[in-house]
């Protein structure tokens, strides 16, 4: 058997169909929540969600049947492929999500400029950047640019923190 055919067979047998179910499961869960939570509303309020929801559930059913048939034919497994595998990049991704959550939670106290500076530092550190000069220059540059362009020049009302409260009044603006 040729190398190409063997490779194609191996790929088909290794298809990770469990990952293909994540979006349909999310969609079906949300649709059921929508249909149940709106069941006691007047028909005008329910009509749109019901029409879309019924079509979506039917499409998901077709996808599930297709996956079940593939599993029966032995052309895939219920594995999650790259999404379920623990790799350094996966760890970094989760750490970045954690840092972003922390940034969102603390932004009312830290303010946009300081928050951005810290989140940039942390994110670059997580991704393996270790040179202090580069870390400080890039993080400082990004935070300073956002502060100058958006907060000072364009007057965008980003959450203020210590930097905004001290520097903006000095530049003649108000927070």
């Amino acid at each position, binding site marked *: 058997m040729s190398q190409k055919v063997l490779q194609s067979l191996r790929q088909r047998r290794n298809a990770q169909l469990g990952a293909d179910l994540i*979006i349909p499961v999310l969609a079906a869960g949300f649709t059921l929540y929508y249909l149940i939570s709106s069941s006691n509303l007047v028909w005008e*309020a329910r009509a749109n969600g019901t029409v879309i929801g019924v079509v979506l559930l039917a499409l998901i059913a077709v996808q599930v049947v297709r996956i079940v048939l593939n599993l029966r034919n032995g052309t895939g497994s219920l594995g999650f492929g790259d999404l379920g595998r623990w790799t350094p990049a996966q760890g970094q991704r989760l750490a970045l999500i954690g840092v972003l959550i922390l940034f969102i939670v603390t932004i009312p106290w830290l303010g*946009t400029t300081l928050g951005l500076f810290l989140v940039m530092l942390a994110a670059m550190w997580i991704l393996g950047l270790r040179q202090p000069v580069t870390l400080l220059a890039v993080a400082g540059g990004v935070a300073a640019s956002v502060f100058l362009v958006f907060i000072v020049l364009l007057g965008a009302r980003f959450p203020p923190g210590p930097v905004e409260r001290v520097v903006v009044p000095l530049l003649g603006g108000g927070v």
Partner: protein
Amino acid sequence: MGWDSALLLSLAVDAVMLTWIVVPAVLLGILVGAIPGFSAQNTLIILLPLTLAMDINMALAFMVSLYCATHLGGGIPAILVNMPGTGGAAATTLDGYQMTLKGKAQQALVLCFVASTIGGLVTSIATVALLPFLAQVGMYLRSVEMVAVMVFGLVLIAAIAADDPLKGIIAGFFGLMIGAIGTDHIYGTPRAAFGFLELYDGVPLVPALIGLFAISEAFSMMERSTIVPRSAVVDTRAHWADTLEGLRLSLKYWWLTIWTSFVGLLIGVVPGAGASIASFVAYQQARMFSKTPDEFGKGFAPGVVAPEAANNGVTSGTLVPLMAIGVPGGSTAAVMMVVLQYHGIVLGPRLFIESPEIAYGIFFSMTLSYIVMLFTILPLARYMSQVVLIPTRILVPMILSLTIVGAFANREYVFDMSLALVFGVIGYIARKTHYHVTAILIGIILGPLFEQYLLRSLRIGQGDLTILFSSTIGNVLWAFVVLSVLLPWLRSRQQERRRRVERETPTALTGDQPR
């Protein structure tokens, strides 16, 4: 709307007055287009706070110029490193990279730049002339037909954009379902808002857009140290003789440039078809009508001209359905739709009556940006390839932090930052599992509009769903919906059958059984 020369003249003057914003947008667009995996919509999302803070005409000029320039920029790494900067430049690699291998990189770049700018220029001027007719077509579409138009657009985007049509359609309907969150239009009762007051107005588009595109792209980008391996960059030194030869070849193939740019315009008008499809169709067309079809794929100039003219022809085309019927023709048009909606512009046929300066102004800005491009790109070409070497450990944190802040800027809710992150995770999973994020986003955008037209139709039909099949135009569109679902499915079944035959043939010959 009829031709009003005073309006057209004032729009032309307005466009020229915006040159100062067009020039940096063009330069940024070329830069962005040269970064594979980084697209116009991602840049627009990152710069969304800036765009929202601008005056509407300025914002549109900026967005349109950046959008057009990315299509040109995408050809640079496609030619130099065999890596398309945008999907629309994928076909350019076929002959562009072969020209580079033959030491004709500079010629290929010049061909790419001239074809792109001429293609974009011709089609943007043609679109200005065609828009009044297109707008009138939009007038014939009532609620019932609009429901069919939206489903057709969504299914088409899903079926064409995704590798697996079923996955694409599921993604599109998932988006529509998310778009149904919020209070209903008649009684104001909240539906599926998870108890969050911030979702009573529906899912805000900016955080959804940021999450699905920029954050998920940044998560994917982390798997590489630089966007393009340093070893892949070819040393390209500019020689004026090569530039002149490129210009001579561009003149030689002027008819091909015009013809394939119109192929791009036509394909761009179809929602969801986009630059990738247009450039491959144009490449095929050029080869089919060529006297020397065997030369294609070996570093043949028309192989660069055709896809580049077509993918820039698409830029005008994708804006047509957005302007005429309020359905974005692609993901960048979807970003523009967000900005237009933020500024209170109502898209659709009435746009040409209520805000003609917006409808036509976009195409005037586009024409100006192509003129600017023609004069700025040639001397800059040789430096562009270096952009692909920016380390992702700097690029990813910048994208993440700036886009999260961008999510806040629209409504000034910290909640929207969390929403962007949630959509980022959904987008990343969707990318990894090939459920198309564009289809989800288009669904979210169309969700509220779909509800509006569906309810209007149902009220006319007193709750009877068969009203949706009561108009001729609507029924033709429903037939197209069925065809756009069935044809890709039949095609994939056919391919599957062909693969099965191929698999079984060597087995029969060797007697080897698959385990």
